[in-house]
């Protein structure tokens, strides 16, 4: 690897070490906030793999989050598995589901794909609602683990992993394939890229990490039910965080998660409805004025109103 690649890696390592030391110096409240932040960042980065790089905007990734949560939850409660096994199982099952669902659904164009994934998310909730082993509508209660440190480090670990995967994708032959698919799928196929295979892998990876996040969430929150883990809001949040930060970049989703989580947290202390409203308004503003996200803003280095005005005019009728 050239020296150019060492610098960001070392910087990243530095940040991770700082974060790892975090629990020693911050309050329990901030610790919980950070765990949630890491979780949202994982979701945003995982969405980035299928949407940002590959161009297939899935509107149902909460389904994988929920599958991970329920798999881990069921294994913990009904089968007595230790967390160290139940968690990877959650990720693997979510990934397998991603492959199974991905194969037919990735053949659909643009908006059909989005709606199909949306439908899958909603269907999962309704199905789980009716199934006994998952506790149906009543939900599942986990054994309690009073160790915020465990959750902190596990979430951080998964976050580092998914970010590394994003980084690897951005610098690899595989990543070039995904990006080519995003830019022009027909041309990509003509170039020799096995598009169905590549898309499915991206989707599976996306699902796996969302599932892992869900698995940790289940144990952390201690109680899950279909409405909590198969929420449309979760999907929307991960999408807007990735888009706000810059979808298709490695660090954009992280940035978006950091900024939006923090602001939302500050508002949530006021009123839950206000926090939701905030997300809605942010989404509208971002799509209108900065659809390429903060990353593009930073890269352009031009902090003028012209940038926003140009974006506003770019897609008008």
């Amino acid at each position: 690897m050239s020296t150019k690649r060492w610098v960001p890696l070392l910087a990243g390592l530095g940040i991770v070490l700082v974060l790892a030391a975090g629990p020693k110096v911050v309050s329990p409240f901030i610790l919980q906030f950070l765990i949630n932040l890491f979780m949202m960042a994982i979701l945003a980065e995982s969405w980035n793999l299928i949407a940002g790089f590959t161009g297939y905007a899935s509107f149902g990734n909460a389904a994988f989050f929920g599958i991970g949560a329920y798999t881990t939850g069921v294994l913990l409660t009904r089968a007595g598995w230790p967390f160290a096994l139940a968690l990877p199982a959650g990720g693997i099952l979510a990934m397998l589901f991603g492959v199974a669902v991905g194969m037919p659904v990735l053949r659909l164009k643009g908006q059909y794909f989005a709606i199909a994934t949306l439908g899958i998310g909603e269907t999962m909730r309704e199905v789980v609602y009716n199934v006994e082993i998952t506790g149906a509508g009543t939900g599942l209660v986990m054994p309690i683990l009073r160790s915020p440190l465990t959750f902190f480090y596990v979430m951080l670990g998964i976050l580092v992993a998914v970010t590394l995967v994003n980084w690897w994708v951005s610098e690899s032959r595989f990543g070039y394939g995904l990006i080519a698919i995003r830019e022009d799928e027909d041309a990509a196929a003509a170039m020799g890229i096995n598009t169905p295979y590549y898309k499915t892998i991206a989707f599976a990876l996306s699902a796996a990490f969302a599932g892992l996040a869900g698995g940790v969430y289940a144990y952390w929150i201690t109680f899950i039910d279909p409405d909590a883990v198969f929420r449309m809001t979760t999907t929307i949040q991960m999408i807007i965080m990735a888009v706000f930060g810059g979808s298709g970049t490695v660090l954009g989703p992280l940035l978006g998660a950091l900024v939006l989580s923090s602001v939302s947290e500050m508002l949530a202390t006021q009123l839950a409805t206000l926090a939701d409203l905030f997300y809605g308004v942010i989404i509208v503003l971002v799509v209108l004025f900065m659809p390429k996200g903060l990353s593009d803003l930073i890269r352009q280095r031009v902090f003028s109103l012209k940038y926003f005005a140009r974006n506003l005019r770019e897609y008008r009728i």
Partner: protein
Amino acid sequence: MVILQARRVTKHFGGLAAVSMVDFDLREGEILGLIGPNGSGKTTLVNVITGMLPYTDGKVQFKSQTIQGLQAHEIGQLGLTRTFQVVKPFRNLTVLQNVMVGALFGARGGARDLASAHRKAEEVLEFVGLAHKAHAQAESLGVPERKRIELARALAMRPTLLFLDEVMAGLNPSEIDEAVELIKRIRDRGITLVVIEHVMKAIRKLSDRIMVLFHGEKLTEGLPDEVLNNSAVVSAYLGRRYAEQAHA
């Protein structure tokens, strides 16, 4: 030696026969000109052979391997590729990155690592004359240069057979001359070419043989002088004026 054998290639869209029972052979190293009026099925023929559209009927062998029924990417990996009539650049990538995609995924699966793909891409850009724009966003280039990106991308795939779909559309006369020279140099590298064009001057200069399509069927094929003076071809496509001018 025959590099491509196409028999009875047929493509229907509902009731419309876009391509009908087209037979032809391609000899290694030759340039076949493919001409015909708009809507005669030239691009559809290419789409079917390169795997972008399913066949209604037909059998095609490329280097003794049956390729009808294979997927587009598999055919690309065998060394058969094409440029698109309406160019399809990867807009958010640089020119160099566009060509690298071709280098990474072309014949026999392409390069395995970015570094050698990078080198290959640079070499190809030099060859087509776009090296000075290597780091520009593909989006910022005008149409003639975008056609060169398309060409470079295809060449980076190390193809044995290349279909060029109207690469000269929209070029001015001096650009056309440059394009003709470039295509000749491509042939000199050992690549067999099928050139679809409406620019007769270029077809005449480039083609070893010419095939004419009309309403999806092969009207005739043969040496340029024979074909371009063939009365059926003249009345179907070229027009009397052209024939008179050619004789004058």
